[in-house]
């Protein structure tokens, strides 16, 4: 199907099914049960799953294939968001021109940064991208928000005001929409105790994500993708054989920058607001975490990692001491209190600690990420010995 081999078709179909049925799959617990807080089937979170999925898929094309570790990808996400909001301000709330411009601008921006940064490799490349991203952050945060030339609106964040131009604005559409379907429309379906929500914004983002996922499969399987893998494996050798690797790595950099820009544009489409903090280097670190956690260099890994991190960010940070006490109330009191005391550090506000620990554990014991873990379990079940070589890319 679609020029994919059988295995990739399977993967793609799997992702399609998950994406379409997500409102059901993410909502396994009845609304009034105690487990309802583990439900992730609300529009805001599902949108973030797919949007950060796009971001991570794009990052994976650069890092997973070429091995160039960029610590500045959030800059492209931020640029995409700003571009999209500007389109809302100038044209209309229709998301098509917004997404179009955010991809283009992010592409141009990443072409410029990539051209300079890719002259160096290894740690120098990481630091250069980091420096560029921090610089963009500083510029967006303070320089471009002066009254004379206000492009980013600084700390407040760029948003659409009533007196903006909005040339093609349709009267009653005052939130982002796709030719009339507003992004925040949600249809609800109540089946006895379950309450399923179908959000237009989610399905639009999911369609975009599926398309981008398809492109990433094609890139992975193309001669271009093979070339990128060769860069990761042994760039020196490639140079000695007379191949100029720069155009290939630059293309990968720009493609992943465009993915990031698209993700930024979608973020702005779901909530028409763009702030500089999206460009900060911790945001770049987050996409690195997602990709590594899921499994760099694999097709499904980045999606999995993005979902995993966003899910736990939302769910763990909601678990406060009261919830913990409710869980352990059947235990003896001293045990309950001590358990709550221990878990207190890891949930609620302390969820970043859990994330950091989890991340360290993954990097130390499972360098291939969750996908590698799944593969090992599968192989162990089949009775074969897990592969000794940790660096083998898993598919």
């Amino acid at each position, binding site marked *: 199907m679609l020029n994919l081999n059988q295995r990739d078709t399977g993967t793609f179909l799997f992702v399609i099914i998950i994406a379409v049925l997500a409102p059901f799959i993410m909502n396994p617990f009845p609304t009034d049960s105690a487990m309802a807080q583990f439900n992730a089937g609300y529009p805001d979170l599902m949108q973030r799953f797919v949007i950060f999925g796009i971001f991570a898929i794009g990052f994976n094309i650069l890092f997973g294939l070429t091995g160039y570790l960029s610590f500045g990808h959030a800059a492209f996400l931020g640029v995409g968001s700003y571009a999209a909001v500007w389109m809302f301000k100038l044209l209309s709330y229709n998301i098509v021109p917004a997404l179009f411009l955010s991809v283009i601008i992010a592409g141009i921006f990443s072409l410029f940064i990539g051209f300079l940064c890719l002259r*160096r490799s290894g740690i120098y490349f990481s*630091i*250069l991208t980091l*420096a560029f991203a921090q610089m963009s952050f*500083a510029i967006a945060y303070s*320089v471009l928000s002066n009254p004379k030339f206000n492009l980013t609106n600084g700390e407040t964040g760029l948003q659409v005001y009533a007196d903006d131009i909005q040339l093609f604005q349709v009267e009653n559409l005052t939130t982002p929409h796709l030719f009339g379907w507003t992004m925040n429309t949600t249809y609800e379906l109540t089946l006895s105790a379950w309450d399923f929500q179908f959000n237009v914004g989610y399905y639009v983002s999911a369609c975009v994500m599926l398309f981008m996922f398809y492109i990433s499969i094609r890139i992975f399987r193309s001669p271009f993708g093979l070339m990128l893998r060769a860069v990761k494996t042994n760039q020196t050798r490639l140079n000695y054989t007379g191949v100029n690797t720069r155009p290939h790595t630059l293309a990968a950099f720009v493609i992943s920058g465009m993915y990031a820009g698209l993700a930024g544009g979608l973020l702005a489409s779901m909530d028409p607001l763009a702030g500089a903090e999206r460009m900060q280097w911790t945001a770049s670190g987050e996409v690195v975490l997602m990709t590594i956690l899921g499994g760099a260099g694999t097709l499904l890994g980045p999606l999995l990692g993005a979902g995993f991190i966003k899910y736990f960010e939302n769910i763990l940070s909601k678990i406060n001491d009261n919830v913990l006490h409710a869980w352990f109330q059947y235990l003896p009191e001293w045990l309950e209190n001590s358990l709550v005391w221990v878990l207190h550090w890891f949930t609620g506000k302390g969820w970043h600690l859990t994330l950091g*620990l989890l*991340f360290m554990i993954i990097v130390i014991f499972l360098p291939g990420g969750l996908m590698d873990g799944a593969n090992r379990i599968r192989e162990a079940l089949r009775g074969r010995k897990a592969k000794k070589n940790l660096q083998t890319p898993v598919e």
Partner: protein
Amino acid sequence: MDALLLQILNGLDKGSAYALIALGLTLIFGTLGVVNFAHGALFMIGAFCSVTLNKILNLSSTTIDETQKDFLGNPLKVKTPYVESWFGEVAGQSIIEWSVPLAIIFAIPIMLAIGVIMERGLIKHFYKRPHADQILVTFGLAIVLQEVVKAFFGANPIQTPAPDALSGVLDLGGAIGLQLSYPVWRITYFFFSVIVIGGVFAFLQFTTFGMVVRAGMQDRETVGLLGINIDRRFTIMFGVAAAVAGLAGVMYTPINPPNYHWGMDFLVLSFVVVVVGGMGSLPGAVLAGFLLGILESFASTTWATTTIPGINQIIIYLVAIIILLVRPRGLMGREGVMEE
């Protein structure tokens, strides 16, 4: 002229912090070949050593004084720090007042221990792994350390005052007829960092231990073949690097109240400093630290910010990018370090 000197002074104290952190980073990189993203967190932990000592010294016993009344008419509760009751009032108070300089003594063993534990427990297993893995695991560690500190000390900056004798303003220009006064503590910080940097260099240059370490930096394998346990020395050097970062943090607390994300804030800048100085070059790191500090303070003058708005925010990155593209090995980088 006054303004010029003032900016140089401003740059020197910011630069001393950069230089100290970058020195530690380069030490770790030059000896173990590990890119340590948790180094900023070590700086932050150093700062919180000083906070902790301050809190410990302020632990008080409460006694009820029947002769005095508080505003509600109840007997007044008098808090006396234990230090005061042990050493007498005058000595006790001055101990509390000098808590930041005292924290140096308190921080050195702690930071050494943290460094050694970190190296033996975690970094050791990452020598053979790619640099990307080292960056990632230390990045994770930095998040964990930061969150642990946040859990204990909260998210707000904590004031830790300098001792009175060192907290005023010093008139530097009087003797040479210039109007130039400057906070004493910042000058202290500069001299302190010069001493620490000098100490590290002297340690490497004039002791047998340092000689072996330098030899190991040149060629680890050969030193190992000569029957020297180079791993143990490198572990100690990791501890020393952690202590240098920690001391930089301890002394920085009166300049800027520490909070938990200090580590991340300084990390990015100090990495830029290291790369500008040249990976693996100790004098390069120090030079670049002071240079970028001074550049940053010159870019913050009103003249610069009105000419190019926001230049103070981006100057360091801008310079770093230019230097890396023009002189790929940095200012004083050695050949063959991290080339590929």
